[in-house]
């Protein structure tokens, strides 16, 4: 197995991000469905995680022994996940063109069902990823595997009660090989999280449950993300699970999609696509 720790340079990461944004826009536009808002907001994070932080092999194995694992809990942001996986070498970039189409491995929400490399659990029905990640982290401990488990969750997703079962468990059982990132964009389908169901003081809640919490105010800044993930990694192994509150802007990088929930689950039309693409340079070649 070829295990790699891709330590891409800042320049490389900065080239990847606009290309991933282009992929996201083109994928959802092509099938007139999907979730661009949250995907765009997490482009910097996922690109950085996969190209600068995690140890893994693109020769994918479900068990992922002695590799870092990533679980996407908010499965609706599949466009950014698929683009990042393809651009990181898990499957051909050309396959992005099959997103949400019949007989595709790139289902609307990620799944293991069609055997897409890089996906270890189905997600889409919200609130389940934290528990799954804890299980994988427990198995790593049993296997004396020192690699880490990373997750990404929506902030609105924390309204699902299963998360709090998992959050309580992880702290109580000292799951200290888990770094859970919350996409803290404060938006969900029906509006702002404050309008729908306020999350309250999320940091205080997580700390009260016994977690180590790292805030990243500039959640769309690659250098800030690298710094936070390095801080998080250095905090592992200390009997506490770690949460990163990643303050992002939904729709980041496409001006008319930013700072609104309107593009949570809506695809751009031809004209809107052209505007969005014009704001993001084709750095590595479109699929």
């Amino acid at each position, binding site marked *: 197995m070829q295990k790699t720790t891709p330590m891409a340079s800042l320049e490389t990461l900065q080239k990847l991000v606009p290309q991933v944004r282009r992929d996201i826009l083109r994928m959802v536009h092509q099938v007139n469905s999907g979730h661009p808002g949250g995907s765009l907001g997490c482009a910097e994070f996922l690109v950085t995680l996969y190209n600068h932080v995690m140890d893994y092999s693109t020769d994918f194995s*479900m*068990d*992922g*022994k002695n590799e870092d*694992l990533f*679980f996407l809990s908010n499965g609706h942001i599949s466009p950014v996940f698929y683009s990042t996986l393809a651009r990181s070498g898990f499957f051909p970039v050309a396959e992005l063109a099959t997103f949400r189409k019949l007989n595709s491995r790139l289902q609307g929400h990620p*799944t*293991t*069902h069609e055997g897409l490399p890089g996906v*270890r*659990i*189905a*997600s*889409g*029905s919200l609130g*389940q*990823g*934290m*528990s*799954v*990640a*804890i*299980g*994988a*982290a*427990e*198995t*790593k401990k*049993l*296997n004396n*595997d020192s690699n880490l488990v990373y997750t990404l969750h929506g902030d609105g997703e924390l309204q699902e*009660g*299963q998360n709090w*079962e*998992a959050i*309580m*468990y992880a702290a*109580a059982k000292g799951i200290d090989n888990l770094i859970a990132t919350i996409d803290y964009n404060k938006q969900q389908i029906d509006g702002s999280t404050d309008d729908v169901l306020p999350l309250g003081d999320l940091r205080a809640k997580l700390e009260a449950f016994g977690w180590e919490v790292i805030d990243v105010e500039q959640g769309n800044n690659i250098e800030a993300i690298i710094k936070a993930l390095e801080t998080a990694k250095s905090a592992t192994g200390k009997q506490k699970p770690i949460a990163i509150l990643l303050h992002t802007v939904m729709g980041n990088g496409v001006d008319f999609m930013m700072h609104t929930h309107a593009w949570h689950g809506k695809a751009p039309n031809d004209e809107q696509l052209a505007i969005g693409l014009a704001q993001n340079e084709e750095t590595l070649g479109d699929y």
Partner: protein
Amino acid sequence: MGLKEYTFTEKIDTRSGFGVGLAELGDANPNVVALCADLTGSLKMNAFKDAHPERFFQIGIAEANMMGIAAGMTIGGKIPFTGTFANFSTGRVYDQIRQSIAYSHKNVKICASHAGITLGEDGATHQILEDIGMMKMLPGMTVINTCDFEQTRKATHAIAAHNGPVYLRFGRPKMPNFTTALPFEIGKGIVLQEGTDVTLVATGHLVWEALEAAKTLHAAGISAEVINIHTIKPLDDALILASAKKTGAVVSCEEHNFLGGLGESIARVLAQHHPTPQAFVATQDTFGESGTPAELMEKYGLNAASIVRKAQEVIARKA
């Protein structure tokens, strides 16, 4: 045709068969891990816990989290066995099982005690009669309902060797332990009595009742074939069809709602291949209530006497 004699030295609960099987597995297979949601004693998981504390995970009263953790633990090669009551193993966590276990093809063994009405005095909140239906509808899920201690012990071993998600259903009442000499193979029904007039297809706690019913029928000059279907999915279609063709009448016997249970699976096989009169010994789209197991079996028509009545009715319907 004479009846085979089934004897037993003791009555013992099926859940204890699970507990013994799990402890044996723990010794034999280092990849087996066990998770429990605050019902370790009720599930008889103490022996595993005491022998392998590092592989026992007390999740607390958080079944959704337990199912997710179990799914995640398979990543890296563990074989998780979850333990709680049948109600909390299925209805409470259906979506977690559906997405994180079944759709994700995770090798999780969902082990459920206190299934059905024989849970008794706790009443309808805990007496799930819909779980077989929910679990058998999930693509890729194997569904097993065992009839006594030994069958449950053997099933516990068999599901560890099977790659894929499994729902194993057992219960609380003490039942005759009579299958010691019988084999257990997932998906293979067992002919307990050979007969020619009617086929009694039984699962779980109703298997012993079906054997008792066959004796009563025999005394009345009716030859009943008794088949134990422990694996409801995948169903042993061939065995059921062969018997239905021979006897021309079927009674399905289960501690479950007649909607969604073993009886409906049998009706599907018969309708597709060999339409045959069938009667259903099962609850009739109702919730349960508090009472002793024997009182409840009597009131809800889940005992040998009820099987005898249904057998006579279905024989009368033969063309």
